[in-house]
Every structure is written in C-alpha cells, then in structure tokens.
C-alpha cells in the first residue's frame, strides 16, 4: 500500500483543501448553476423546452452519428491495434504516432480540413461527388469527423491487451489442431471484447459532446444535420437561457449514463485480466 499515515507526511490538508476548492469553483458550482437554472423552469416548462420535435431530432442525430462513428472505430481500431502489436513493418512507429493526432489536433482544424477535402473540388470530393456521394455538409460528414476524433480510443485500449496476451494459449490451440481463424475467434477475440467495448464507449462519449469539428462539416440544418450542442448554442444566441440549460441537462444525462457504463466496463475488464 503506498498510502501513509496523515501524520507521517505533511501537506494532506493543503493538498486536499486546494483540490476541493478548485474542483468546487471550476466544476461543481458551475454544474449546480446549470441544474438550478434547468430546475427553475418547472416540470412542464422543462419538458416543453427540452422535448420539442427539433430537440428530439437533435438528440436522435447526436446519438445516432456518435454510435455509428464509435462502431466503425471498433473495426478500424481492432485492425490498426492488431497490426501495430503483432507485425513488424516499415514506418510502423510513424503510423503509431499518427494514431494520436486526433487527440492533439484542434477540433476546429479537423472540421475545417475535412470539409475542404470532401467538397466538390477537394482532394477526395473530386472523386466522390461525381459518384453521387456527398460528404461535406451532410450527416455522413458528421460521422466521418467523429470517426476522426474518436479514432485513437479503441486502438489505445486494445493495444495493451493484445501485447499482454499469453502466447502459450495461442500456441496450445495451434498444437491441438485449431486453425488460425478458430484460434482468433475462440481465444483472442473474447479477450478483446472488454477493451474494445471500453474504447467504443470512450469514442461514443467523445462524439456526444463534440462541437468544434462538426460545425465546420455540417450544414447545421434543424431536423437534418443539427446536433444537440449546436441547438444549445442556438438557444443561447436567442437569450433563451432556461431552454438552453434544459437541453444541456438532457445531453449531460446521456453522457453521464455512458460514464457509468464505462466505469462498469473497466471494472469488468480488470476482473477478467
């Protein structure tokens, strides 16, 4: 146990005191202010503000595009994670480093460049648009930037589990006559489920709140391509603070629900490990 008695080392009071003070000022009080504002509406008004057809369309879109992007990221992340752990190839370290770019690149830059790539005269749009595939300013574009922002999560959760996988179990399966595909499906895949789910949930949570990249590539049309954070911002522009707070509370509950799921998943995967 690395903890010590409070008398043996100094600074417990100062450390915890400052932590609680800063946490309260920056996080807890603002969160409370949001809840108080939303609660001040009363149930009927809250419902009228947060559950309009336009708001419901925004939640459904936010949930849907985040879910799609996270699901696609599971597949992409498993491929890239597997390749980076199992194989040796030229430029491997470059690929590994590039995986982290979405964590460091400002989301506004991502939105800007993705929109630019897929418009009609863009590097990729010049091939896709003539085929009738419109990416820029559509829902497909939103999914695409969310794939970008959530890309590192599955790769980074799967990588350590793959690296720790016991080689002997795989060898034993091979010795006992399992084909490579059977070994993968029966032995390797089950151990990858918990980290892949964790990565999925992290990417999903990131997608729910994402704003910076999406507004560049979305046309932000109500009922079509308007995500929930965009709607909150529109309400704020109209000085409808209560309504903005109500929609924000719905969005927050979606995120916090997911946070609970992530915590459960992490405990589950730790128990398996």
């Amino acid at each position, binding site marked *: 146990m690395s903890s010590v008695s409070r008398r*043996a080392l100094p600074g417990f009071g100062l450390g915890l005191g400052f932590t609680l003070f800063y*946490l309260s000022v920056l996080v807890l009080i603002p*969160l409370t202010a949001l809840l108080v504002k939303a609660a001040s509406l009363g149930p009927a008004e809250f419902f009228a503000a947060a559950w309009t057809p336009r708001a419901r369309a925004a939640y459904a879109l936010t949930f849907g595009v985040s879910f799609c992007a996270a699901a696609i990221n599971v597949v992409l992340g498993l491929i890239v994670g597997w390749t980076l752990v199992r194989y040796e190839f030229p430029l491997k370290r470059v690929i590994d480093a590039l995986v982290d770019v979405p964590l460091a690149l*400002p989301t506004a830059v991502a939105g800007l460049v993705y929109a630019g790539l897929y418009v009609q005269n863009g590097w990729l749009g010049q091939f896709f648009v003539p085929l009738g595939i419109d990416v820029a300013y559509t829902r497909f574009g939103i999914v695409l930037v969310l794939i970008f922002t959530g890309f590192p999560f599955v790769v980074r959760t799967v990588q350590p589990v793959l690296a720790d996988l016991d080689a002997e179990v795989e060898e034993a399966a091979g010795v006992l006559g399992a084909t490579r595909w059977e070994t993968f499906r029966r032995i390797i895949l089950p151990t990858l489920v918990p980290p892949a789910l964790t990565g999925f949930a992290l990417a999903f949570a990131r997608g729910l709140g994402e704003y910076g990249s999406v507004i560049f590539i979305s046309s932000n049309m109500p009922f079509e391509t308007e995500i929930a954070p965009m709607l909150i911002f529109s309400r704020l522009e109209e000085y409808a603070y209560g309504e903005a707070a109500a929609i924000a509370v719905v969005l927050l509950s979606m995120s916090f629900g997911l946070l609970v799921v992530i915590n459960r998943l992490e405990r589950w995967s730790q128990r398996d490990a």
Partner: protein
Amino acid sequence: MHDSKIANARRADPLWVRIALIGSSFAIVGLLVALPLANVFFQAFAKGIGTYWKNLTADPDTLHAIVLTLIVAPVAVAMNTLFGVAAAWAIARFRFPGRTLLTTLIDLPFSVSPVVAGLMFVLIFGLQAPLGQWLKAHGYQVIFAPPALVLATAFVTFPFVARELIPVLEAVGPDEELAARSLGASGWQLFWRITLPNVKWGLLYGVILCNARAMGEFGAVYVVSGRIGGQTDTMPLRVEKLLQEYNASAAFALASVLTLLSIITLIAKVLIEPKVRVEQEQEPSEK
C-alpha cells in the same frame, strides 16, 4: 530456438492476412490522419509562401488571436497544473473517506460537452445573472472577456495533469519522502527536492497534453467569448471567423500553425513517454 520457431509459426498469421491488415492500417491512418494533415499545409501554402506569411502577420485580428491564445492557454494550464499536483499528492499519498468519489469527480469534465461547459459559465457570469451584474457594476468584465476564456479552457482541460500524475506518484511510493521527513526535511524541501524530481516526466507529460487541448479548444471558448474580433477570438475561433469571411487561405494558414503546434506536441509526447514509463516502474530502493 527450434521450438520457438515452431511456436512463432503457430502464432503467425498467413502472409495474405498480414499484407491485407498492414495495407488496411496504412489506408486507414493515411485517409483519416495523414491526408488531412498534408492538406492543411497544402491549402495554407496554395497561394505561395508570400501570401501565407501575409495571412499570418498582416492581419491585426489574427495577430491578436495568436497572442490571446498564448496568454489564455498557459494561464489555464498553470491553474490545472497547480490543481493536478495538489490532487495527486492528496490522492496518491493518503487514504481518506470519499477518495474514490474524488477520483471520479476529477474525470467529470471529460463527459461534459464543451458547449455545455461554456453555457455553465454564461449562466454564472452572464449579464442576466446576479453575479454577472454585480461584477459588471464593480468594473469586472468576466464573460466575453479573457477571464471567461481562461475559465472555460481550464474546465475542459481540468483532468489532464491530475490523471497523468496520480499513477506516477502512486508508483514511485512514499519511502524516500518518509526517509527525508525523518531526517528533518521541511514540507517544501520534501516537495522540491524529492517528490518533484521523482515525477517530473509524468508531470511534464500531463502539462503537454493539457496545453495541446487548451490551445485547440473551440466549443467552450466559442460560447463564452462573444466572438468579438480583435478582442476575444483565440486562434481556433479566428480560424472559424476567417472561413466565415470566405478567406479560406487565411483560415488554413492559421490552421497550419495550430497543426504545427499539435505535431510538436506529439513529437514531445513520443520522446517523453519512455521516460514516464521508467518513472512509473522505478523501485524506490534503486535510487
């Protein structure tokens, strides 16, 4: 030797699988990451290096945005670093009721949409709120001014330093500190001479990640800034405004600066990661 070769053969995938997966990985990372990165610089320099330089330096609003980001981000990072050190010290060195809850609360800002984060500060400091009116009456402008930018940025990047520092501090263990204490070191001597040197790479790692996110933050800052040109636009906000003004080449020029900063961040990350790992694995007795 012979055995391990057979074993490796049993673990090895068929050649076509390997080629297909490596090829897919190149395609995925190439299309998703490398191509957009290249495109930022291509678009930024599309009208030549002269225009590029003019885009960055001739527009006072753009210059102001660069300066503002270079002020707001470090202040927010410094605040979060102070907090991260305090939180890591309390959480990694002591047991107390509510410790697990505190650890969970530190991660909370990661699940709050940046727009919602901005909204929270508008609700407190906006001119419709009592506190906002009181501050305004006493001559303090918070919302639509740099203080709100700092608060919003600090909220969004809140967990970074604490999250990186707690596991490193836990791994290092308290033995050296206890020894120094028994030899009569004061609290601050202990901190500056023992604790800080032991965790410096972990701390730097957290600060770098925090800073990258702080400089690039868009949503939260967008909401609280009021987007007043030449006053409250940070670099990412200025990129958006330039695009709105149909000045794509200037938007991409400024975006290329942000991209360059994030590439530098990633290089620093790759260089520091092994040192953080060493710190996490060090045995107190080895030192």
